[in-house]
């Protein structure tokens, strides 16, 4: 049954930074920025910026199983928050998606994240992105993303399949690297042998 994303998740904005996020050693919050997300959609937890928040109000810290959605720019992908430090927030370029309490039992965050990164949702974002200098997805548009929620069992299976597929990509990349290493080794050995003989 196709419904919309807004039915299952609540959508919040990133922390409203004005201008540049200044790093500070005495900072009280870690910030996830778009550049902290690698090509595989993983958050690089070690590279987050520590900064001092100007406001007095305690921000809405990220929780495990939140989904970060890149709203600004042409690459609108979703990333699952796994284990980040407690005092982490995200920059305003993201929307923070959180499964609504009444759906905790039947909606898997990882599955939602997966579906947002698949072709049908991506095509929807492509046609809905607006802006002159930089395109972005509005909150309303994100809420209305067409969405299907199968039963919980199926969600788990798909998520598992997805995890395997990601691992497969990684393994293939390692294989390519492995071959390159082999070539380098052969090349330098050849050169060494020749110089010795010369």
């Amino acid at each position, binding site marked *: 049954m196709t419904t919309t994303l807004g039915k299952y998740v609540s959508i919040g904005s990133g922390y409203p930074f004005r201008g540049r996020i200044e790093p500070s050693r005495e900072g009280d919050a870690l910030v996830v920025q778009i550049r902290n997300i690698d090509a595989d959609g993983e958050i690089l937890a070690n590279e987050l910026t520590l900064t001092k928040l100007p406001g007095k109000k305690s921000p809405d810290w990220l929780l495990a199983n939140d989904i970060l959605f890149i709203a600004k720019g042409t690459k609108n992908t979703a990333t699952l928050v796994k284990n980040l430090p407690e005092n982490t927030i995200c920059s305003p370029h993201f929307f923070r998606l959180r499964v609504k309490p009444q759906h905790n039992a039947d909606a898997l965050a990882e599955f939602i994240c997966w579906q947002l990164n698949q072709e049908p949702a991506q095509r929807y974002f492509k046609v809905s992105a607006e802006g002159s200098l930089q395109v972005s997805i509005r909150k309303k548009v994100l809420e209305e993303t067409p969405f299907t929620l199968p039963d919980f069992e199926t969600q788990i*299976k798909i998520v598992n*399949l997805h995890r*395997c597929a990601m691992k497969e990509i990684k393994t293939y990349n390692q294989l390519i690297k492995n071959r390159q290493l082999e070539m380098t080794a052969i090349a330098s050995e050849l050169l060494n042998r020749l110089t010795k003989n010369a």
Partner: protein
Amino acid sequence: MTTNQINQDDINKAVWNACDTFRGVISADTYKDFILTMLFLKYISDVYKDDYNKLTEQYGDNPELINAMMSKQRFVLPEGASFWDLYEKRFEAGNGERIDKALHALEEANGSKLKNVFQDISFNTDRLGQEKQKNDLLRHLLEDFGKQMLDLSPKRVGDLDIIGNAYEYLIKRFAAGSGATAGEYYTPPEVSTLLATVLEPVEGDQICDPCTGSGSLLLKCGAMVRKNSGSKKYALFGQEAIGSTWALAKMNMFLHGEDNHRIEWGDTIRHPQLLDKDSTGLLHFDVVTANPPFSLDKWGHDDAENDPYGRFRRGVPPKTKGDYAFISHMIETLKPETGRMGVVVPHGVLFRASTEGKIRQKLIEENLLDTVIGLPEKLFFGTGIPAAILIFKKHKTDNNVLFIDASREFKSGKNQNQLTPDNIQKIIDTYKARKTTDKYSYLTSFDEIKENDFNLNIPRYVDTFEEEAKIDLVAVRTERVQLKNELQTLETEMEGYLKELGYGA
């Protein structure tokens, strides 16, 4: 708003805002001359007014005495030529003509000091539009500069630096905005700071920049003498080929209080102007520094063969690349004992063969080359290429050459990279230590350069490659088998999930 304190940012903002009047009417590299000239006029007018008021206070109502005293001031401002006279009449027709006349009168009244400075600028030009539009534009311009914020009188500004800095700020903003032409008159401040620090100008030095541009490199050197020796005893020399840029440099000098300068107008290679008393030989300097145009085409090859000053005795540089013409000229203007020089060059200068290779070889054989510093890319305005700094010394203490590869340490920006104070300090420390450091600098001997056929390409000397680990081929093979097994397991696992989802074969 208080009238006593003024801060640099405010004044920068105010002058930059004055440019809004021109924006959209004419292009930035045209209106920069109007703005900068107006700032200069405003400055001398305010100083004059201030002095006049002071004298009136002191001597009361005695116009004759006061006028006599005023004629001995730094600048003489004839009747009707001050900014305020022009400001008064701003609503009448003929603003352009009035400003031009005022500038002309100013030039006349100040003898050789301001001679020809305003000859290239005309406010009464059709470039500003039809008569009515032009008059309106200039009225706005006068009003922009007439604002309280831009009161540049000494009692408000205090020292000269604020105005000089505002002038430099404008030049920099114009350079950043005007693309290809910008490199012609402006060297990025970090590079001029670096040059000035490395060359260590001291009290009594005569300093020359044969490609003066807007003069900021010379001013940095002057400031460095004051910092090093606490003395104002030094002389600045320069030559600039483009008339409007030359005028810019002159005004820049006055605004920084460097009244003791000699900057000539003309082509350094074809017609060097800084000559000795009999005009037969070149003047010699303690410090020569420049950022010459990179690989200038048509630099004057035809006459170089018979150069009356013998500057190209090491060889005539190729027709389409003027780099070694400027280097040769600069070398020939160094004093025999104290002479030291810093020049910004494109990397081709380090390794190009043919005539350039021969000139390079001779310079190295004469033991003139002291240091090569590789700079990061995208540092200069109008070009993205990485440049290098060559330091030459007439009197070297060893026959080594120090190579510094500073190309990988900078603050990266969108269109323009920057050297941070830390980056600059590291270069200077390395230069002073004159030692080999890992992946950053290398002190090489003459013999080693000779072995390299006098090719100075920096990577030949400063090795920045990471030591490659010895690859264990057996381990590589084992890993391969392991990875393949992993893939097999994944395949089976995924097959299972697919079947459960109803997609099984």
